[in-house]
């Protein structure tokens, strides 16, 4: 275990803890009616965001879904702009127009935040096409769920990206459910990586509960894509610990199943491994928690005080401002 590896692990751990704590706070804020609309939690899936996005640089692009808090944080967006957005404040990343499902940051090439299942995939293909045509060495990471794989758009985009050998990393967050529908009732063939390989692109499945395996797979995937091998497909096998959204009574899953998966909690898994390797102790963990808590408190306070977008600006940004 080198210094460097230890440092990487600490960063991965911190990244996951930030997401976990952030969303736990979001739940409180939702109950307090500070956040409204649909909110989809990433809790349990943190290893995917934390591991994947390490493989990307600032030149790369990310396209995501409505379940994107974790990815936004991992991409470097601040808790403050995210929370302000969910509070519907002018200081939010989307000036309060998007909410939890529509987080954007053009400066970080974070292209949302798409609430139509499968709707982000064509955008990713287009971003990659543009980068290729402009000879930019960028990779576009496109995230979507197991349910999206049933949409026709998935098929069209896989074929198009493979046909044109575009630099897209298709990353399927397979959490085994599309709302209340289990994987086996969504798909005739539930081996999604196998399905993807039928488009003639490299595809493989990864344990999405182990952030180190995810980071490793992501690096390999990004390297091959950047090298011009065309798109690839990563199936990240994960699980959401919470309901689909805060509207969801979660009646369709066996509680024992949830408990079994919680035993593989990506944060406790990595923490245990680090302790075993003498890279983590209670003080360090306490520090991480304290830093994250402080960041969160500042973000909540800022969001509370932030101003609303003036109503007069309702129709602004429908079209470009004209000078």
């Amino acid at each position, binding site marked *: 275990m080198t210094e460097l590896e230890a440092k990487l692990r600490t960063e991965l751990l911190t990244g996951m803890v930030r997401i976990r704590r952030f969303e736990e706070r979001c739940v409180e804020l939702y109950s307090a009616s500070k956040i409204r609309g649909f909110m989809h939690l990433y809790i349990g899936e943190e290893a995917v965001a934390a591991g994947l996005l390490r493989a990307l640089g600032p030149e790369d692009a990310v396209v995501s879904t409505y379940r994107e808090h974790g990815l936004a944080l991992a991409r470097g967006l601040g808790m403050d702009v995210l929370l302000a957005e969910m509070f519907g404040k002018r200081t939010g990343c989307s000036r*309060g127009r998007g909410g939890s*499902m529509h987080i954007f940051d053009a400066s970080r090439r974070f292209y949302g935040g798409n609430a139509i299942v499968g709707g982000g995939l064509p955008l990713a293909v287009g971003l990659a096409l543009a980068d290729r045509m402009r000879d930019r060495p960028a990779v576009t990471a496109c995230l979507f769920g197991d349910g999206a794989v049933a949409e026709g758009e998935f098929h069209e985009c896989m074929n198009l990206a493979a046909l044109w050998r575009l630099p897209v990393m298709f990353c399927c967050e397979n959490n085994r459910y599309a709302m209340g529908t289990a994987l086996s009732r969504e798909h005739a063939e539930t081996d999604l990586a196998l399905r993807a390989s039928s488009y003639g692109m490299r595809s493989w499945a990864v344990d999405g509960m182990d952030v180190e395996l995810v980071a490793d797979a992501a690096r390999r995937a990004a390297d091959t894509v950047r090298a011009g091998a065309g798109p690839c497909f990563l199936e990240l096998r994960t699980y959401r610990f919470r309901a689909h959204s805060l509207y969801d009574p979660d009646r369709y899953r066996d509680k024992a199943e949830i408990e079994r998966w919680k035993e593989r909690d990506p944060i406790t898994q990595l923490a245990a491994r680090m302790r075993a390797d003498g890279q983590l102790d209670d003080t360090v963990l306490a520090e991480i928690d304290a830093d994250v808590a402080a960041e969160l408190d500042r973000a909540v306070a800022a969001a509370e005080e932030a101003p609303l977008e003036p109503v007069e600006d309702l*129709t602004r940004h429908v079209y470009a401002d004209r000078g």
Partner: protein
Amino acid sequence: MKTTYREAMREAIRDALTTDERVFLMGEDVGRYGGCFGVSLGLLEEFGPERVRDTPLSESAFVGAGIGAAMAGMRPIVEIMTVNFSMLALDQILNNAATLRHMSGGQLGVPLVIRMTTGAGRQLAAQHSHSLEGWYAHIPGLRVLAPATIEDARGMLPSALDDPDPVLIFEHGSLYNMAGELADDAGPVDIDRAAIRRHGRDLTLITYGGTLPTALAAADELAVDGVHAEVIDLRSLRPLDEHTVLESVATTHRAVIVDEGWRSGSLAAEVSARIAEQALYELDAPVRRVCSAEVPMPYAKHLEDAALPQVADIVVAGRAVTG
């Protein structure tokens, strides 16, 4: 009995499943989950997975499958979670469901019912707040219904199932929790005529679906300062019962149309045009439309409220045409 719009809808589905073996319910999460708005809760347990059929996320395929099944003698009730996702099935609805009878010279028929939730008001932002029933009302070969009362929630479905042609039913998300009385023997209702929900002599308020309560509230306010509005619930958006509308305008000589759709190209435009084209000399004031602002629906509450037709907006319009 006391019931809600949601329960009335559920009762209508249950009754249809019980009395007609050709009927089945199909859609995303209608079974195990109980319907994303809980409408079909319990029906899977009661009727089994063949007749309460969960589908993958494949709007075009399962809507088209409903069309095919209807041609082959079934009476499918297809649920599209919300109108926002129906664009993915629009080709099947426009080019198959609405067209097959005519294109086949009358040989085929598509006795299909498609239900979907419509409308905004819950801070779901731009991709989840559409009111596009007006588009469907443009399509020859379809019937388009918008139940705005508990009676209609209970009665429109059986009438739609009796119809030999495809019928779309739009349920506004804000109505599901509406509680009220329903006759124990409530059953099918007429689906050809509009209904006068409140009588008045000074002005005709024309609306449908989710904005009926808003319009009625506005009528109350107007009544306070002596303006008596007649409130018409269109109920059927295609065909439009213009007769009822024109009769009312012939007595009030003033009309305001309330429609949650974007103003330009709204269903309200069609109603406004018909009034002025057929009752020009009856009008003592220009017809007014109270519609949604022409912006993708913003998340922030104050912006969403500003974008949607409010009681105050209707009152202002009502005063303007009568003042």
